[in-house]
């Protein structure tokens, strides 16, 4: 007879580990079961080749909640976030648009391309930060159910109303507009230069099966600027040692409080008896019992794969089936012997250290999306190339470079399937794109890893390889995430919970979903709440 636990968390992604850490900290006997032989889910650092650390899924960090970082003592457990310099965008005509941390430098840089847009920048950032600050109030809170008259829901709605009213009437109207707009329309309200618009629009399509002209992408843009690095809202950083350091640090906190992780333990079914969860059955045939089962898997996988249809309310299976979780991103991680040349910039130029993109216009980005619609990877893809090892030397030995390329768009299905041949062709498209701006890039490649949505689904377990565990469209945000009526982390069965990015506040390495889930579980167990509130700006 195996040991019985108080709670089982399925999936050792960073959110699952966070839920487990808080439950353990509260004194519960917790087990995390993970199908892979490593922890972290999509927040991993993997030594795929000797001496090279690949942050092979998520690659940069900003959304991680500071209060959780501090509360779980993640620094003590080895986590260090290194801010990195912004992104330089190379254009076809041999020019570039850089992003500087200094406001005056940034003004001059944008002014080089458009004087009017340089003047509009202040207005743009002011407005964006206003929206970010309102949203930030809700990240570590459980969304209210608008159909409920329970005191807690009414209180939460009152809290929301108060925060919104604090913006003032005009900004509430602006915010209402903002939430449903396209990034292109939103940016057109500030900027006229197509390159500048494209540059700012990149955040609006990352991980999203929409184009810059699609309504709803303005919010996705906000989703990428509402995080912070040590309180600097909008800034992004790298986790030293790769993104796996985040998972490792949370795992450290879990161990500190006596929680356990079982690797290579893939769940076959969540066992339900008499309307209550009883534990999980693993694919290797063993059964582990616990009255509480938390799924850190995406909602579609949770309700269509590891729960029995007959255990679910009638409508839930359909909701899960209709849940929008679309693979739209790929990754190509590259190990380089020496630093390739980018002739646009003189050797040794500081901008060579930042991230790199290759864009000219919104139209180019939109055409990349059109390819995705037709089940093709983008022939002229958007690439965000982050030179991780420049800022975090643990990735590669001195003189070597590790770069992480994030690619939009790459579909889950392509004609002929994701054969090895197609996969290599996708990789070639990316290398060719970079080579357009760096002729000797190819010569430096030591080895590389090509990851299509198919690979991400297969390895990490994310349905369709969607990095956010579900599209960030407003029909799947706040009290609608993952489905209306199920936004408070509780599943349809007593004792069953959800903690993944498929819940509010959504994707990104935030640990907020996991922390919120832990708070709800502790509440149901009538234990004191030990999950911290967010730090207010």
């Amino acid at each position: 007879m195996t040991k019985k636990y108080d709670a089982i968390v399925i999936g050792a992604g960073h959110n699952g580990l966070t839920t487990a850490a808080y439950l353990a900290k509260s004194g519960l006997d917790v087990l995390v079961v993970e199908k892979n032989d490593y922890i972290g889910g999509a927040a991993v650092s993997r030594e795929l080749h000797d001496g090279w650390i690949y942050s092979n899924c998520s690659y940069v960090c900003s959304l991680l909640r500071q209060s959780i970082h501090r509360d779980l003592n993640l620094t003590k457990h080895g986590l260090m976030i290194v801010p990195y310099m912004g992104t330089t965008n190379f254009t076809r005509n041999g020019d570039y648009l850089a992003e500087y941390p200094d406001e005056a430098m940034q003004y001059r840089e944008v002014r080089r391309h458009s004087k009017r847009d340089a003047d509009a920048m202040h207005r743009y950032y002011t407005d964006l930060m206003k929206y970010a600050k309102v949203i930030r109030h809700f990240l570590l809170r459980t969304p209210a159910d608008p159909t409920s008259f329970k005191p807690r829901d009414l209180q939460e709605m009152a809290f929301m109303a108060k925060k919104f009213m604090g913006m003032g009437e005009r900004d509430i109207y602006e915010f209402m507009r903002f939430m449903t707009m396209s990034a292109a329309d939103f940016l057109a309200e500030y900027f006229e230069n197509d390159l500048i618009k494209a540059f700012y629009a990149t955040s609006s399509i990352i991980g999203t099966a929409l184009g810059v002209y699609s309504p709803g992408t303005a919010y996705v843009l906000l989703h990428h600027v509402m995080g912070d690095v040590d309180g600097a809202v909008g800034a992004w950083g790298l986790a030293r040692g790769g993104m796996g350091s985040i998972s490792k640090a949370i795992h450290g906190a879990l161990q500190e409080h006596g929680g356990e992780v079982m690797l290579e333990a893939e769940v076959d079914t969540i066992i339900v008896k008499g309307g209550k969860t009883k534990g999980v059955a693993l694919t290797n045939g063993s059964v582990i019992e616990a009255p509480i089962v938390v799924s850190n898997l995406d909602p579609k996988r949770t309700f269509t794969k590891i729960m029995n249809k007959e255990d679910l309310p009638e409508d839930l299976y359909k909701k899960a089936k209709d849940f929008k979780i679309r693979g739209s991103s790929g990754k190509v991680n590259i190990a380089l012997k020496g630093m390739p040349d980018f002739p646009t910039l003189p050797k040794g130029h500081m901008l060579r250290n930042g991230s790199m993109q290759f864009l000219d216009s919104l139209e180019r980005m939109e055409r990349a999306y059109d390819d995705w619609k037709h089940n093709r990877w983008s022939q002229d893809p958007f690439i965000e190339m982050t030179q991780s090892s420049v800022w975090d030397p643990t990735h590669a030995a001195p003189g070597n470079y590790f770069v992480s390329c994030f690619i939009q768009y790459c579909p889950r299905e392509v004609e002929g399937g994701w054969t090895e041949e197609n996969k290599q062709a996708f990789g070639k498209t990316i290398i060719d794109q970079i080579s357009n701006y760096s002729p000797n890039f190819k010569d430096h490649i030591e080895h590389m890893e090509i990851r299509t949505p198919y690979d991400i689904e297969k390895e990490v377990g994310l349905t369709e390889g969607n990095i956010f565990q579900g599209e960030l469209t407003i029909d799947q945000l706040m009290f609608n995430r993952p489905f209306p009526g199920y936004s408070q982390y509780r599943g349809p069965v007593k004792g069953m919970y959800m903690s993944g990015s498929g819940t509010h506040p959504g994707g990104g390495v935030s640990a907020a979903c996991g922390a919120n889930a832990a708070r709800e579980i502790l509440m149901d167990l009538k234990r004191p709440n030990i999950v911290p509130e967010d730090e207010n700006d």
Partner: protein
Amino acid sequence: MSKQYDALVIGAGHNGLACAAKLARAGKKVMVVEANAELGGLAATTEFAEGFKASVAHTLPQLTDKLVKDLELHKHGFSFASEHLETLGLKEDGSDALRVTGDTVTGVSQDQVDAYKRYSAQMQKFAKAIAAFWQKKPPMIGDKSWASVSTGIQFGLNLRLLGKTDMREFTRMIALPAQDVMDEQFEDEHLKAVLAWDYTMGNKLAPRSPNNAMINWLYRLAGDASGFNKLPIAKGGMKGLIDALAASATSAGAVIKTNAAVKKVVVDEETATAVGVELADGEVVHAKAIISNADPKTSFIKLLGTRYIDIQFTHRINRTRTDGQTAKMHIAIKGEPKFNGVSRADGRMIIAPKMSYIENAFDSSKYGEIAQDPAMEIVVPTMHDASLAPEGHHVISITIPNVPYKVKAGWETEKANLQSAILNKLEAYAPGIKDQIVASDLLTPVDLESRYNVTGGHWHHGELALDAWWMNRPTYEASQYKTPIDGFYLCGAGAHPGGGVMGAAGSNAADVVLAASK
């Protein structure tokens, strides 16, 4: 000193006329000035070829019973030529068209018929929950008046009264793109495309565009003048309705002046109040209320002038999205048109075999190109009303979405390209029709702009989308028909609830003007 009116309406579109009629019937002295020779604006009926008449707008789904009654339109000669057109999904191979009418659909499998019944019932439930709000002034957050507060409460209550399950579905579905709504409900690709049609019409939206589609569909369901969820057309074409509106106004004493373009709105410098208009011929007409049926950009930027408005407000008006996305083609033909798989061309015929077909056409328009496979909506009004064409002849009225306002190659060359794409597609679905053509008139968004003085040639005077809806239409501080300039009001489609031949904007604006004059 010229004659002083209580109210002067700029533009004799259907909203302007509805506003004028309502004010006149309330005892106000009203004048309407119209730049063109014909009344109606985008709802005007023009004789595009000798003996052939057609209008840009061709159906009347949004017309409400309340407006018809309030303005006694039946007494003034308005009637329906048909109270309900069937929607027909044409099939290129000549097999029987798919037919959608009210709550039923034919030409698809039984499970799709059942799915349609469920879908239709749910949509009607949603539409009824919000239908009342199209007829009301939008509330404002800072407006503590009872009218505003009660409208807000009523809105919340109506949603809640849908019941927990439907309210949740409403909050989710309102943001879904047409494609997701259809994929969730149906299997039949052709049915999906036909039902998705009204989700994006008139707007720069594709089946895959989130957030705005459902609101357009619920809006389209709003009318009840011919019964809920019906698709009527007027006797005598749109002219039948426009003449009735004008008669309702003039019979109550309103004066309508055509060929009278407004040069500018006259503003009293000291009080910054709109006091009259100056016409193109130099004549100045004074009125206590100046009500513009023109689109917001024309109203504020051209006619009023930015000199009198705050820079931020100006910016907000300028940013309203007004690039039209819809073209119109009138075709005069000899004999009766014969479409594949349709015994009588008396329905609303849609050419869109699947949603990706519409999406592809939209993709061309995104880049300022003409789609070679256009999606089209075709009505033959003369099948219901012979008075619109000489005997033995017919008028085909085609609406073509996904036509960009700005084309890369320029309209000088692309208009012919668009025309041939439309005619080729028409010929494919109605073989031999090209030989029947006597005359035709193609109106691109740019033509609509210049002919009807509508910025961008946009059907709705600006995108009808969630970010430009209700209290944000056209922008806050002008969404209650009043504007920051005293004495200056909006009554056109750029104001709530938007375009479509509904008359609600005009009627709601009249209520506001009447309340202000008390």
